[in-house]
């Protein structure tokens, strides 16, 4: 059956088109565009992506309002059924606010918006999202965020590290994130949140293609599953 995915658009999302194009180019199949006010998702989804941006103007806290929007209740139910969910940047913030991932994303320690390519280390290459990389491989993916400073209490950090749920780590300090964590998996491994933008490293014209393997493996992992 053809690969079926959905990209959710919240008011203020601005990376939704980039995400949809990356999925179309790398994963193929049908990409549905879903509005935040929709209470239901299309049937038969293999993959849901929450894009970057500034949903609801970052009012209250980044991702806080989007996490309570009608479509997110459907996304939470889909994630619980085992549907693969990727949240990038604002999408990561939404996933933590919705309780699908542990921790929170706070204002960057250096106060300023950070927009540049960063080096990431692939910490766990056993996940659905990262099996196309080598363990310990260093890749280059851009970040563009103001609130990317990952925080969780020490007990939570120890637990997710022990369970191999840190997917990516910044190779050097970027935003003050605890233990330089850049991407986190849920306990079941079907939900990934990350601040860097893999959808912006898909073709040579982007300056690199290190993001492709993530999308390639989402398809490969689902076909093999």
């Amino acid at each position, binding site marked *: 059956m053809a690969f079926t995915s959905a990209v959710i658009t919240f008011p203020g999302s601005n990376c939704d088109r980039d995400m949809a194009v990356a999925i179309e180019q790398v994963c193929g199949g049908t990409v549905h565009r879903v509005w935040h006010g929709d209470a239901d998702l299309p049937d038969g989804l293999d993959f849901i992506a929450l894009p970057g941006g500034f949903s609801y103007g970052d009012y*209250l806290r980044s991702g*806080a309002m989007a996490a*309570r929007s009608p479509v997110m209740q459907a996304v939470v139910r889909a994630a619980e059924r085992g549907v693969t969910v990727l949240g990038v940047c604002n999408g990561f913030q939404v996933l933590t606010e919705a309780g699908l991932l542990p921790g*929170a994303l706070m*204002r960057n320690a250096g*106060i300023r918006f950070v927009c540049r390519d960063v080096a990431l280390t692939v910490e766990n290459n056993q996940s659905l999202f990262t099996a196309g990389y080598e363990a310990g491989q260093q890749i280059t993916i851009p970040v563009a965020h103001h609130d990317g400073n990952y*925080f969780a209490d020490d007990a939570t950090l120890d637990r997710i590290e022990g369970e191999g749920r840190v997917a990516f780590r910044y190779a050097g300090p970027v935003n003050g994130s605890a233990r330089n964590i850049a991407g986190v998996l849920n306990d079941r491994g079907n939900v990934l949140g990350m601040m860097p933008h893999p959808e912006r490293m898909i073709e040579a014209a982007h300056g690199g293609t290190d993001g492709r393997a993530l999308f390639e493996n989402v398809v490969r992992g689902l076909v093999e599953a």
Partner: protein
Amino acid sequence: MKVRVIVTLKNGVLDPQGRAIHHALEGLGFEGVNDVRAGRVIELDVADSTSDEALDDMCRKLLANMVIENYRIEKAA
């Protein structure tokens, strides 16, 4: 009923905004400022019948992020 919800970062959570405000105060020549923590005040006008439990629920479900923040509820006399 007027209700004021004060949301503050938990102790031990680094507050970059508070630190920037602190530096700015020092830059303006104010001395003796030991620490600055920035928070958020949310004013609600709710039905008089609103229960304390409902107010707590609002704070926990939306107004505060319990991973990083504490909240305090003040009711106007």
